[in-house]
C-alpha cells in the first residue's frame, strides 16, 4: 500500500556479500553492473541506484572495511537497509536452509551482539559465531561464518539496527564436508533460496520506504528553501512549519502567498501567520 505512493527508486538497499558466487543471483536479479574495475572492493549497482552490492572477500576485516567503503561510495541515505547474505557452516540445521541471524558471537573476543530480525518470518532463527579461521568442529554450534560480526558492528554504526539483516544459507556441517564446497554448489545454494531471499528483499525495501517517508523533508520544503537562503536553524523552523501547513491541509496557495517575500525571515513570518489562525481538527486524523 505504501509502495504505491513512492517512485520505484525511493527505497535504498545495500548488500555486503563475501563471494561473487554468493552474490551472483542478486546481481543478476537486479541487473546490477560493476561500477569500476579499479575500486578497492568490486561494487555493483542497479540502474536507478536503489540496490548497491559490494563483494567484501572473506574475513572480518574485509567485511568491516567493505561495509564502510560501500557506505561512503554509495552515499547511503539514513533510510538504507543493509543486508549481509552468505553461506555458513552449521552444527544443527538442514543443509541448504536460509536462516536468520539474531545473535552474533565474535569468536576473537567473545563479544555478543543481538541483531533485530525480520518480523513474522518463517525462516529459522539462529545464533552466529564469527571466527577468523574455518571451523570444522560443529559440535553444539549453530551458524559459523567469517564476516557476520564485523559487518554488523560496522553497519550498526552507520544505520539503525532495525534496518540491518543477516541471512545465512547452511552450506556445511557434520554431514556435509566443507571440503566439498565449490563455486558451483555455493552459487546453487543461494539460488535455491531465491524465493525466500525475495521475501527478505521486499521486507527491507518496505522498511526503507517507510523510513524515507518519515525522515525525508516534504517537497514544499525544498521548493521554498531553493528560492531563499535559510540558515541551518531557519531550515529546522521551515521544516516544522511546512509539515504543520501540510497537516492543516493549507499548502495549496502557500507559494502564491510567499511570492513577495524578500528574504527567509519574511517567509517564516508569513508561514507562521498562516498557521496561527488554524487549530488542529482532531476528527480529521
Amino acid at each position: 500500500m505504501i509502495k504505491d505512493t513512492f517512485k520505484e527508486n525511493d527505497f535504498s538497499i545495500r548488500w555486503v556479500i563475501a563471494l561473487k558466487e554468493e552474490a551472483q543471483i542478486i546481481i543478476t536479479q537486479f541487473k546490477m553492473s560493476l561500477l569500476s574495475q579499479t575500486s578497492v572492493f568490486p561494487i555493483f549497482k542497479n540502474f536507478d541506484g536503489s540496490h548497491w552490492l559490494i563483494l567484501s572477500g572473506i574475513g572480518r576485516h574485509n567485511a568491516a572495511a567493505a561495509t564502510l567503503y560501500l557506505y561512503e561510495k554509495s552515499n547511503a541515505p539514513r533510510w538504507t537497509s543493509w543486508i549481509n547474505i552468505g553461506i555458513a557452516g552449521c552444527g544443527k540445521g538442514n543443509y541448504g536452509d536460509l536462516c536468520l541471524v539474531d545473535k552474533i558471537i565474535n569468536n576473537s573476543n567473545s563479544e555478543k551482539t543481538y541483531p533485530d530480525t525480520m518480523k513474522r518470518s518463517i525462516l529459522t532463527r539462529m545464533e552466529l559465531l564469527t571466527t577468523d579461521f574455518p571451523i570444522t568442529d560443529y559440535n553444539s554450534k549453530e551458524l559459523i561464518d567469517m564476516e557476520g560480526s564485523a559487518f554488523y558492528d560496522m553497519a550498526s554504526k552507520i544505520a539503525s539496527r532495525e534496518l540491518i539483516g543477516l541471512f545465512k544459507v547452511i552450506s556445511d556441517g557434520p554431514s556435509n564436508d566443507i571440503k566439498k564446497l565449490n563455486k558451483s554448489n555455493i552459487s546453487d545454494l543461494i539460488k535455491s533460496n531465491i524465493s525466500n531471499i525475495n521475501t527478505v528483499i521486499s521486507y527491507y525495501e518496505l522498511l526503507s520506504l517507510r523510513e524515507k517517508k518519515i525522515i525525508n523533508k516534504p517537497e514544499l520544503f525544498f521548493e521554498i528553501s531553493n528560492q531563499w537562503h535559510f540558515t541551518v536553524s531557519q531550515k529546522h523552523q521551515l521544516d516544522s512549519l511546512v509539515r504543520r501547513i501540510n497537516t492543516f491541509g493549507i499548502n495549496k496557495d502557500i507559494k502564491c502567498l510567499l511570492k513577495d517575500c524578500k528574504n527567509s525571515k519574511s517567509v517564516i513570518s508569513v508561514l507562521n501567520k498562516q498557521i496561527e489562525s488554524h487549530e488542529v481538527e482532531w476528527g480529521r486524523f
Partner: protein
Amino acid sequence: MGKVLIETIYIEKKIKDHPRTKSILSKFKKARYIEIDRYGEVFNKRNQNFRIQKSNPALILAHKNDGFVLPAPEGFGIGASKNYYFSHMYNCIYDCRYCFLQGMYSSANYVVFVNFEDFDNEIQKIIKLNYNTKITFFSGYDCDSLALENVTGFAKHIIPLFKKHSEVDIEFRTKSIQINPFSSITPQENFIIAYSLMPDLISKSLDNKTPSILKRINAMSLLASKGWKIGLRFDPLIHGKNWKCLYEELIDIVFKSIPRESIHSVSFGPLRFPKQMFKDIFKLYPDEPLFSGPLSRNKGIVSYNNEIEEEMTFFCQTLTAKYINESQIFKCLA
C-alpha cells in the same frame, strides 16, 4: 487486553530459572528465547529505532539491581505530603503519541523486572521511614501499571502488601480495562485505580492500541460498582478545534457513569515535554498532528503557551467542581 504478540524474548542469565521467568515464558511458547547477560545489551543501545521497534517489540526479562522506588517528580501527586513511584516494567504496550516514553528510550522493547520481592522490600522500608507521614505510591510511571498484567502479574503480587499497609495510598494508573486483579478481592480504601482520559475524538487519534474511552469508562464504572475508588486523570489536556465542547462532553459522560462517592480525585495535567525529549519525539513522528498545535518553547520546556494551558485547566476544573469537592481536584505539573 488483546493477546500480546511477542516473537522474541531476551532473558538475563541471572533470572533464567526464576519461577516468574518460567511462568512468563510459559505464556509465549512459540517465541524465540535468547539468553543475554544484561538487558542493556539489547535495550536502549545506540542507533536503535524506537519507531520501527514499536511495530513489533520484543520482551526482555531482567533483574533490577537498584532504584526500585523513587521519589515522584515535583508536581506529581494527589494531596499526600510525599509521593513515590515504582516501575516493574519499562515501556508500554500502548503507543500514545504524547507519551514521554517515546523520547525516554531509543528502544521500544518491553523490559520486565522479575524480582518483584525487591520492590516489596524497598516499599516497606520507605513506609517504615515515613511513619506518620501521609504518602502515596504510584505504580506505572515508566509503563502502564495494568496493561501487561496478564503476563507479569505484578499488580496481583503487590496488592497484598498495600492491603497490609492501609496507612499509605497506592495508585495504579492505567488505560487498561484489565481489572482482574481487583475484581476478585474486597475493595481497599487506600487503593486508587486511576484512568487516563481525554475526549474520544482526540483519543482516537493519539491513543494508539489502547482501549477506547468508552471502554475505559465502562471499566471504571464496573470497579466503582464493586466499591473501588477511582482516579480521573485528564492528563495531558490536548488543545484543538472545539476543545471546550469535547472536554465538556467527556466530563459529563464520566460523571454520569461514575458515582461521585466513588471518585477519589481528579487531576489535570498540561501537555509538557523537556526540550530535548520533544526534539527526539518530533524526529520520530514529524508529521504528527499533535505537534502542529500551538506549542511554544519556554525555559527548556515545550508546551502550549501559558494562556492556553491556564484556560484549559481552569475550564476543566470549573466543570469538574460542579460534580465533586474542590479539595479532590489537583493540577499535575510533572
